[in-house]
């Protein structure tokens, strides 16, 4: 724990100051299903951390707890001091991307990306530069007036990402955002997401059940086990490693994937 978190500038990757810490977090639902129990994890400023695990291991629940969409039944969720101050001023400085694009079908691409700012009281004209910048980041400037139904699955997901980025969040939470896409689109969006992460210097928490995706994207992987959901292994991936097609086909990548797969297999055998 750094004593002066506010001195730490966000870095593209690596050992940043803790942004938030979950200690002994448990979550039970009304039907007494226990999703998480004794979850300890940390998110560090500027990192790209993946939560990897089988279905039902509570990784999506962990993401919802971080977003504040649910309250932990037990345990603590502590934000870094400067982040707490920041969130007091901008309570909605978190971007969230769902598994589905979750766009409003009745609004254009522009209107969908405008939504978080509109709800914060920023009018269309005032929001336009931020909206166009976010659309620029995901390469959809030309489609500002299109409606969601006119877009492909990958483009809809880009709009969804642009909507999450439009408030310039320091923390981006993504819940299996590419799980429903074909592999070609997925690879393309993986690269685009890394580019966005580098340019915006934000922190990304990425839920996935794909070993290959987590190794390709992350600076750190937390492997979850199920029943009860908690972290069973942690892997670090050299943050300065360039992530490109050469990396995807390299022996290092293959070795990392094997290591991660083994950790996942151990996590699934653990109970």
């Amino acid at each position, binding site marked *: 724990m750094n004593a002066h978190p506010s001195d730490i500038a966000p870095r593209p990757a690596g050992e940043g100051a803790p942004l938030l810490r979950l200690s002994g977090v448990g979550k039970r639902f009304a039907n007494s299903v226990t999703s998480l129990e004794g979850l300890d994890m940390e998110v560090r400023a500027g990192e790209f951390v993946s939560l990897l695990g089988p279905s039902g291991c509570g990784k999506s629940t962990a993401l919802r707890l971080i977003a*504040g969409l649910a309250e932990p039944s037990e345990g603590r969720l502590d934000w870094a001091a400067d982040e707490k101050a920041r969130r007091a001023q901008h309570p909605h400085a978190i971007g*969230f991307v*769902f598994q589905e694009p979750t766009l409003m079908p*009745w609004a254009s691409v522009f209107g969908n990306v405008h939504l*978080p700012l509109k*709800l914060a009281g920023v009018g269309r004209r005032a929001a336009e530069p931020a909206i166009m910048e976010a659309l620029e980041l995901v390469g959809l400037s030309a489609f500002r007036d299109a409606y969601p*139904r006119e877009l492909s699955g990958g483009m809809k997901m880009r709009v969804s990402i642009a909507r999450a980025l439009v408030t310039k969040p320091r923390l981006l939470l993504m819940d299996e955002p590419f799980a429903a896409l074909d592999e070609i689109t997925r690879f393309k969006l993986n690269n685009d997401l890394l580019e966005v992460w580098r340019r915006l210097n934000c922190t990304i928490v990425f839920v996935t059940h794909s070993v290959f995706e987590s190794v390709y994207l992350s600076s750190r992987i937390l492997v979850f086990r199920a029943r009860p959901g908690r972290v069973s292994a942690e892997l670090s991936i050299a943050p300065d490693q360039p992530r490109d097609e050469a990396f995807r086909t390299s022996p290092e990548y293959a070795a990392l994937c094997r290591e991660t797969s083994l950790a996942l297999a151990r996590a699934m055998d653990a109970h």
Partner: protein
Amino acid sequence: MATSPLRWLLPLGVLAALILGWEAVVKLNNLPPYVLPAPDAVLATLVKDRAVLFASMLVTLQTTLVALALAVVGGVALALLFASARIVEFSLFPIAVILQVTPVIAVAPLMLIYLSTDSAVLLCAWIVAFFPVLSNTTLGLNSVDPNLRDLFRLSGASRWQTLIQLKLPTALPYFLGGLRIAGGLALIGAVVGEIAAGSAGQGSGLAFRIVESAYRLNIPRLFAALLLISLTGILIYAALSLLSWLVLRRWHESELGGRT
């Protein structure tokens, strides 16, 4: 097929064949007009009695539209109330169902006792038109995408913002579907009300003209009035379909790829 002229020509051809067949049956069997009038006799009556018949059509149309408008106001308002508090829905929905499943023709005589004729006819039309608006709008308001709801929460949306920017647009296609059903039902309700009132010797809508013509064995006029009722129903349906298309054509699946 969707853009082919056959789509228009086939139904028109079938309709024309039916009318010609009807004409032929009447002419070949020498049927008197009080048994079955030929289509040209119906048309002639329509022209001859146009003053009376169109005035009646306006009365029926007005009753239907006022009832429909009140059904929209009441149905949407109650649906909003249902959506805001589940307990209200549990308490009131059964009553709305009872109102819907009791045949309006059975209730009409009672309403004619307590209300003036005009109000009773209007109430008949309102009762049947109200339910589809209520149930469809309620369904729509409860069909909000849970992820979008979370997104609104995450963005700190107020209840009002969530209602205006999320719940109402979600409910819109459901509401318009209900409105299209309610339009047809409002006409049926108005006709039922008029028939119930008309047999008591009052009223001047199209349904009253039908009852009156039947008593006088003026069968061509009965057919002419029937034709105008059909025409009124078609007009209402077409107008509501057009409205639905204008509102939804940019984004909703139901209005993509041409109208049905």
